[in-house]
């Protein structure tokens, strides 16, 4: 059952006349033998200088493309002009293999020049890229605003069923993870701050610390980061897959506005549910703080809750929820934008998802610091 063995190839190197090299190969010069042959031939011809060379392949039974490669490599090893190296003993079978591998046929390829290593050129290229990305982002936002205008004029063109579905996947499905993370966060803040406050006998202010930190900053930011990781990446992956499989183009030629069809339902769903998730996050964190307060700090449950309620101002709560809805817009926009920018194959889907999350988190932190500055001057 085993095929004829194809694992021996012998070679003989001689110099019949001064300045002439004679290499004869015999056996099977194929995929499994070329390595040994090349390793064997290389040290023997490396040291000498020749004027002519003959490579005799008449003893070769089986030759394949790896063998052809070996022959041309041996020719390179000899190191003299190709016209002075003869390949002799070519049988019709060898000829066929030479033909299909384009042996000795100089196919000139136009090679695209590699990117210039010049740092100024590179800096220029990436500046242009960044500028084009920015222009794309602005025109994308503009297109979304146009789509919103269309929805205002024709409210029935919006796909309400999709909004409800995305509210579920973005919001309801995220409650367990947002709840768990916030509960832990509340526990940690309460535990760490109690270490400091105990010294002054100010245990009760743990409640203030947890409530104010969560409602003003951590609640909106943590929720936004979780949603960016869960849903922003999902938006990017979904839309980029649709883009590369021409589904987006199909929507366009059927007369749909892809932004209205794909982006607005996600955007609206995110803006509606992220503040609600943030509210959940605040409540779970305060519950986490209460666990520490009641079990470790001897603060009564009702005292802890009353203290928290007093610490939170309605305006701060609303400001936090407003921030979280801005974050929701950022998450949905970057997710969809990165999805639409995808081109190519499977790798671009992964890139789109990664870049959606990275961009969204950066923008969340950036906008949050802008909001902090606004509050300083607001008074």
């Amino acid at each position: 059952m085993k095929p004829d063995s194809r694992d021996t190839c012998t070679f003989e190197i001689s110099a019949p006349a001064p300045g002439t090299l004679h290499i004869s190969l015999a056996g099977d010069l194929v995929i499994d033998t070329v390595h040994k042959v090349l390793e064997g031939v290389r040290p023997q011809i490396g040291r000498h200088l020749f004027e002519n060379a003959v490579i005799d392949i008449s003893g070769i039974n089986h030759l394949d493309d790896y063998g052809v490669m070996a022959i041309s490599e041996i020719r390179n090893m000899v190191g003299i002009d190709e016209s002075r190296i003869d390949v002799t003993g070519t049988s019709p079978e060898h000829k066929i293999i030479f033909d299909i591998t384009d042996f000795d046929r100089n196919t000139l390829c136009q090679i695209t020049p590699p990117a210039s290593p010049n740092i100024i050129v590179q800096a220029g290229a990436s500046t242009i890229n960044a500028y084009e990305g920015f222009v794309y982002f602005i025109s994308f936002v503009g297109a979304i605003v146009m789509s919103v205008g269309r929805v205002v004029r024709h409210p029935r063109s919006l796909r309400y069923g999709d909004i409800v579905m995305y509210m579920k996947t973005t919001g309801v499905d995220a409650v367990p993870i947002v709840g768990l993370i916030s509960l832990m966060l509340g526990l940690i803040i309460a535990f760490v701050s109690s270490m400091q406050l105990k010294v002054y006998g100010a245990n009760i202010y743990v409640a203030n610390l947890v409530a104010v930190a969560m409602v003003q900053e951590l609640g909106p930011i943590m929720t936004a980061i979780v949603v960016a990781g869960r849903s922003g990446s999902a938006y990017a992956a979904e839309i980029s897959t649709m883009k590369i499989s021409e589904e987006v183009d199909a929507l366009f030629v059927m007369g749909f506005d892809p932004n209205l069809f794909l982006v607005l339902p996600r955007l609206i769903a995110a803006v509606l549910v992220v503040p609600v998730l943030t509210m959940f996050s605040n409540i779970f964190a305060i519950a986490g703080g209460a666990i520490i307060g009641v079990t470790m700090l001897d603060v009564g449950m009702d005292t802890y809750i009353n203290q928290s309620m007093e610490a939170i101002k309605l305006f701060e709560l609303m400001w936090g929820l407003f921030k979280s809805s801005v974050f929701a817009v950022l998450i949905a926009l970057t997710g969809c934008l990165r999805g639409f920018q995808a081109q190519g194959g499977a790798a671009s889907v992964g890139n789109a998802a990664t870049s959606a999350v990275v961009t969204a988190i950066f923008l969340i932190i950036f906008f949050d610091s802008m909001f902090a500055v606004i509050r300083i001057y607001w008074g």
Partner: protein
Amino acid sequence: MPQTECLRVENLVVRYTDELILDDISFSVNRGEIFIIMGGSGSGKSTLLRHMVGLEMPASGHVYIRGTNISSTDEQTFMNLLKKIGVLFQGSALIGSMTIGENVALPIIEHLKIDSRLIPQIVRMKLSMVGLACFEQHLPNEISGGMKKRAGLARAMALNPEILFLDEPSAGLDPGTAAGIDELILHINRTLGTTIVIVTHDLDSIFTVGKRAIMLDINSKKIIAQGDPRTLKDSHDNPIVRNFFMRKSVHDS
């Protein structure tokens, strides 16, 4: 020249949960021939191919490649066996993030002890064999469907396999490009002596390249015809087989 068998399928039965997909399939393929597996959509052609290359395990029955039973052999033998076969998938399955040249070089770098300086040269040869010289630097999404098939073929042939499995090599191609692929298949078979197993329902390529074929039936899940496709077309007594070759709609009968 005595014909040696290099692939044998014995009483293969495939079942997905409760549904019978293939029933009692037996045939053998000789070294150096082009063997065609044909049948309508949903007849289990591609499933049969997936079982022949060990991607899936049959409910019962055996597949022998070069005399080795692929479902009962140890992993090392199976890995060595994989180097002796090449598969061209329906969608070409080129890795999208790598250039054509890198795709072809992938199995060569992994499985052969060859000086890395020589890899570009062998890749160039493989690509010129399929008529794609000078396309090393292109990404798969930059070339046409026919070129992708050729590139996939070059990658399947990277390690000079004894058996090439081709899943619908001409699907989704225009007639001219499809004919070009058929020519290439014949050329590879003639010059390199590679055994080729083709899954297809493209009548033109069945008649162009096939000397021996089996036909799978969607209803009985068995082989309903085998032999030279030209003879089957003219003189097979089963109307299903004749209808397949006459392109008669299945809903007519």
